[in-house]
């Protein structure tokens, strides 16, 4: 696999030189591969938001480097600026950054900053709106008249419209109802498939990320203790619980079953996989009797 974003010994210290000095990231080596769907999980205050803000050059490393497609994003000013368009970042509660008179204009803000032609801007705005399921009628409304969930989608469309090759989302489903969560997750998945984009999604819900991602990176106290496929990461159940994270409920149930002596595959983390594993164990047992 080819790396698209990498950090080398990345450290970030907030308020350096004041009594509030705080090391939020310490010697982090992070890699995202081209075209993958990556999840970042960590307890509140572990440094997730700090990490992702380095990936598109919003925060400058206190020490260490950030590479995009193998080149240091801080090499020149121009490079930093270009990286912002290549690596799209949707902030936590992005609905608070809307400012234009109409939804259309707000989504067009990013593409316009890229100095694209009017026709291209129009195409991108409409396509981005379609990705997140916003109808044409909504495009002409004021963003401030929409519901919270709709605002969130407008904000996400505003980043998608830049057609970034890497899309990073900081807790995109925080504060939404279950249907809203499903919708947003499937919108993101659609973008991933359609543009073959790399997706990095930050979350602290294990259930949610476990279902969607190819690979998981765990952040704890400004470091990355584990990274790998969900089933590999969830094998560290005890460490994860010590970090205040835990594993998905179904995984916990199967780990417990295994402890009780049932011969079942406990490397699963979704309901469907669990069903299959339990059925397989059941059949094996019946066959043996």
């Amino acid at each position: 696999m080819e790396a698209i974003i990498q950090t080398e010994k990345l450290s970030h210290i907030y308020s350096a030189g004041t009594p509030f000095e705080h090391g939020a990231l310490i010697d982090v080596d992070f890699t995202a591969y081209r075209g993958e769907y990556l999840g970042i999980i960590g307890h509140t205050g572990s440094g997730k938001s700090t990490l992702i803000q380095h990936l598109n050059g919003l925060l400058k490393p206190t020490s260490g480097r950030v590479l995009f497609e193998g080149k240091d994003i801080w090499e020149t000013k121009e490079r930093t600026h270009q990286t912002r368009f290549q690596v799209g970042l949707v902030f936590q509660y992005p609905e608070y950054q809307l400012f234009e008179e109409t939804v259309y204009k707000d989504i067009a803000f990013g593409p316009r900053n890229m100095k694209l032609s009017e026709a291209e801007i129009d195409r991108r705005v409409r396509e981005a709106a379609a990705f997140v399921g916003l109808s044409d009628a909504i495009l002409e409304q004021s963003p401030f008249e929409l519901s919270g969930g709709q605002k969130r989608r407008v904000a996400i469309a505003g980043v998608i419209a830049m057609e970034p090759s890497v899309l990073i989302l900081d807790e995109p489903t925080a504060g939404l109802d279950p249907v809203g969560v499903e919708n947003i997750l499937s919108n993101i998945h659609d973008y991933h498939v359609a543009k073959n984009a790399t997706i990095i999604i930050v979350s602290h819900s294990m259930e949610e990320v476990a279902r969607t991602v190819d690979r998981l990176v765990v952040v704890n106290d400004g470091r990355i203790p584990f990274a790998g496929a969900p089933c590999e990461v969830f094998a560290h159940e005890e460490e994860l619980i010590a970090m205040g994270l835990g594993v998905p409920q179904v995984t916990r149930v199967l780990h417990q079953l295994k402890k009780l002596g049932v011969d079942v595959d406990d490397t699963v983390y979704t309901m469907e996989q669990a069903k299959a594993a339990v059925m397989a164990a059941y059949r094996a047992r019946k066959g043996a009797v």
Partner: protein
Amino acid sequence: MALKDITLGQYFPGNSILHRLDPRTKILLTVMYIVALFLAKQLVGYGIMMVVLASAIAVSKVKLKTIFRGLKPILIIIIITAFLNLFWTPGQTIWKWGFLNLTVEGIWSAVFMVLRISMLILCTFLLTYTTSPILLTDGLENLMNPLKKIHVPVHELSMMMSIALRFIPTLIEETDKIMSAQKARGADFDTGGLMDKAKALIPLLVPLFISAFRRADELAIAMECRCYHGGEGRTRLRQLKYRKADAAFLVGGLAVCVAVGVLAHFGL
């Protein structure tokens, strides 16, 4: 540099004797110090003021680096003052070049002016560094209580001040966040002419105002829900109380003030 690193008027928690003094004492001491600063005329007077400030800083345990960083924003004012005093004070000329006229008196008055301004700023900083905003407004309200007799809305003023102080860091944080979010969409706040820069502020200011109004709304509702109805008959969780140390410090402050005044009278 992040906006958050601005230290102006910031509180640094600690447990030194200065931190523990009653806020009213500290406010009064600061006022006394400023009065004494203006009374001081010559070397001995300034010497005393410097020793007092230095020992206060030492006692407060606030880092020297932090304290002096506070002077940075007014560095330019200090430099201009020094320059004006150096070259435009009439007296015994040492060096002359064009309209610049360096005099002995000029050197002295520049030194004194720079000292006076720096010490003035440093002593007020020391007050805010060692006193939490809440205590500071409590103290001010208490000291201004007599003004209620002439219908000055003391309580309302101090409530406004504490709310403003409380929300400054929140607003700065919010500004930082919205700025980052818009930068992530390619907004550029640094380059371009004046017009471009003003225009670039729209994506920042609109969300900021909206959220400020939302916060104000929420705060008003939260206050009403807890039956806030102004200052009438309101009691406090934390009562301000003068202690022995406060009396000692106040007497000491007064003594310094008088001493500096008397010394200045005798031209020292």
